[in-house]
């Protein structure tokens, strides 16, 4: 194999420079600029006024921000406690060799992820619409349910969670399925021979084996939940729904930055969101890291 010797000591820096340039221009500079913006009130990039920490103090008193945070947390908790078990349960089911048509069913459950949140949001509007909605039509036909019931006025978060389940259960299922297929079958056989029941096999063999993937999916879903934007934006017809019931943190960021034009306040929201996201990330790393060491 040919050996090359560097004659120029600047060569490594030269090779690194494209990467550093791109990171500098597209990552480091915007990050620093957003820190700077968070201390300004702006009307577009052209009109800026230094407001010290006012944006952060205002956020603390801003009822809409708290509403957005509460909505986002509700969605994130639902993701954690409804979406994850469903995705894992579905993966366990679709990993069973006795199940016929597994491949087709996997595709069916994964397909909403292929079309994306805008499409799912749009379809959900048809499902949850009042007089002409699919859900009301079916419920009225079957049980005589009120055909005028306004789901998107009375249960915005419920509709959002259901649309989210439709969208992401299949997506997360794929990760679990991949992890389940890598569980050592010798261990499962040994447990079975030792008389372990299904729950014991799941708890003591399967779960520890898929724990790294589980942690990854939980973290990914939590971050995704906190960044929720397109789904409610489309589902609620480019609004935050009645009484801002569907307002999420990222929607509020968008509203301030791109509709009102205050990039400073939007940056402050962005940094608060970043801090919020650090907490579950650190917890995840701590918890799953410790489990792996055990």
């Amino acid at each position, binding site marked *: 194999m040919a050996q090359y010797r560097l004659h120029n000591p600047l060569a490594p820096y030269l090779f690194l420079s494209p990467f550093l340039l791109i990171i500098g221009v597209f990552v480091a500079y915007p990050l620093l600029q957003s820190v700077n913006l968070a201390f300004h009130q702006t009307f*577009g990039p*052209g009109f800026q*006024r230094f407001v010290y920490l006012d944006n952060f103090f205002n956020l603390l008193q801003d009822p*809409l921000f708290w509403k957005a945070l509460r909505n986002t947390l509700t969605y994130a908790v639902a993701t954690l406690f409804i979406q994850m078990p469903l995705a894992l349960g579905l993966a366990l089911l679709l990993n069973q060799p006795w199940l016929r048509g597994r491949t087709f069913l996997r595709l069916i459950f994964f397909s909403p992820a292929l079309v994306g949140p805008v499409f799912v949001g749009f379809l959900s509007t048809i499902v949850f619409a009042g007089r*002409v909605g699919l859900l009301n039509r079916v419920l009225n036909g079957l049980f005589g349910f009120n055909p005028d019931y306004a789901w998107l006025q009375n249960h915005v978060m419920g509709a959002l969670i259901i649309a989210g389940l439709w969208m992401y259960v299949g997506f997360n299922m794929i990760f679990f399925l991949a992890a389940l297929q890598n569980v050592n079958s010798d261990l499962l056989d040994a447990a079975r021979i030792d008389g372990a029941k299904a729950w014991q096999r799941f708890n003591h063999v399967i779960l520890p084996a898929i724990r790294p993937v589980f942690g990854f999916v939980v973290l990914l879903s939590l971050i995704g939940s906190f960044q929720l934007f397109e789904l409610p934006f489309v589902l609620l*017809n480019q609004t935050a729904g009645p009484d801002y019931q569907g307002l999420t943190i990222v929607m509020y960021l968008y509203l301030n930055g791109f509709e009102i034009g205050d990039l400073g306040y939007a940056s402050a929201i962005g940094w608060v969101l970043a801090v919020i996201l650090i907490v579950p990330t650190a917890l995840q790393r701590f918890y799953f890291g410790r489990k792996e060491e055990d």
Partner: protein
Amino acid sequence: MKSALIKNQSVGLLIITALAVVSGLYGLLRPVSESEGLTFWRVNETWDKEIYGRAIDDWTSVNDKQVNVQVLGNHGLWQRMRSGFFSGTPMADLIEMHLEIMMGVYNGPEEAIGFLDLTDLLKRDGLLEVINQPTLSPWSSRGHIYGIPVSVSGVMLAYRADIVEEAGIDMEAIETWDEFMNTLRPLVRDLDGDGYPDRYLLEMEEGSETGSWVEMLILQAGGRYFDRNGKVEINSEINARVISKIALWGARPDKLTVDLPIFSLAGNQLLIDGYAVAWLVSDWRTKFMKLYLKPLAGKVKLMPIPAWEEGGRRTSILGSRMLGIPKTGHNIEESWDLVKKLYLDREVCRDRYLEGDAITPLMSLWDDPVFDQPDPFFSGQKKGRMFIELAPDVPEMPSSPYNMAARRAVAAASRSLRAFAEEKGITSSQNLHSKARQLLAAAEADIRFRADRNTFLRE
């Protein structure tokens, strides 16, 4: 070494790199195209196409100047316009836009409003006095006028004449909202026997996504969300009285109003099916009816909105479109001349009424016989004249940048009030009044918090 480096790279990577370099250089070195003549961005309203085509042809033949018309969707127009205002990207010489977009233009300091102040041009050409003043209000900020409205945007009540006449109801005898609801109440019916009504009296936005309908009725009653100086004024007696009534109209079990997806196929079909007996229409919205509710031709009539009390105002205002000139325009005088041609020329205004139902805000043209033509869609009524008779009573609409937020906040208060009435079984608006004031106080605090945060508007 050079050849070894190249040899070790994949062909694909080299092609991608080459393409990136070439396209990057092309983007950097390409001259910005400066089109000849005036550029006009307009919103996508299909029936206006021919009217604009003829007017622009006329104007270009006289002025020997080309007009490049670009039709844009609302969102695209908003993004392009803001990019132009904020970052100096290429801008049109004339922009036509909807009210919802315009409110966002007023958020910053006065010098950041990207539109030219037209007040002096209107005065100079003697137009200020002949334009219906309330119609200018949404397009004005801090005492300056930034746009010319396409229509008066007055509001009337459209109702299903076939249904009410079959029931033997004389609509001309109805003067107030109370009379309207009480007289038409028997028309709320379960038509298919499933135990739920399939017909309601009035289409009313019951969520709070836009809050336009509640605002329309509050303005009619003489209420408002902001005073002329932009000070928040949501928690008032009038506003409380109106939202108390609206809440009761929508409260079960005696629900009289209904929310339906307007401007959608489903909403149109529901109107055709008689799901709502009446709905509020502005002059420009009557065109939507003709386009999308064709089976209702000859079955609907218009009447002035019932008043809140005897002798009260019988109309309101619903947002519309305007034409404005960006400050960055190349030739302000030519742009202004084109604005006058497109929005204030007698022939164009006649065409716009005949083909688009829009009533010009130019009072000097209101004597045109075109407005006296019977409209077969509206059972032969002289629709234009009816709107014009109400035009001087059209209320002012505040142009605060926080008006959209205020609309949503008040509509949310109205919605909460309805839920409260349903929960407590309240059937009298007087018994809702104190709760209404409480909810409006919260809405006012919310909007004041947001408005006070804006240091640009404090000066």
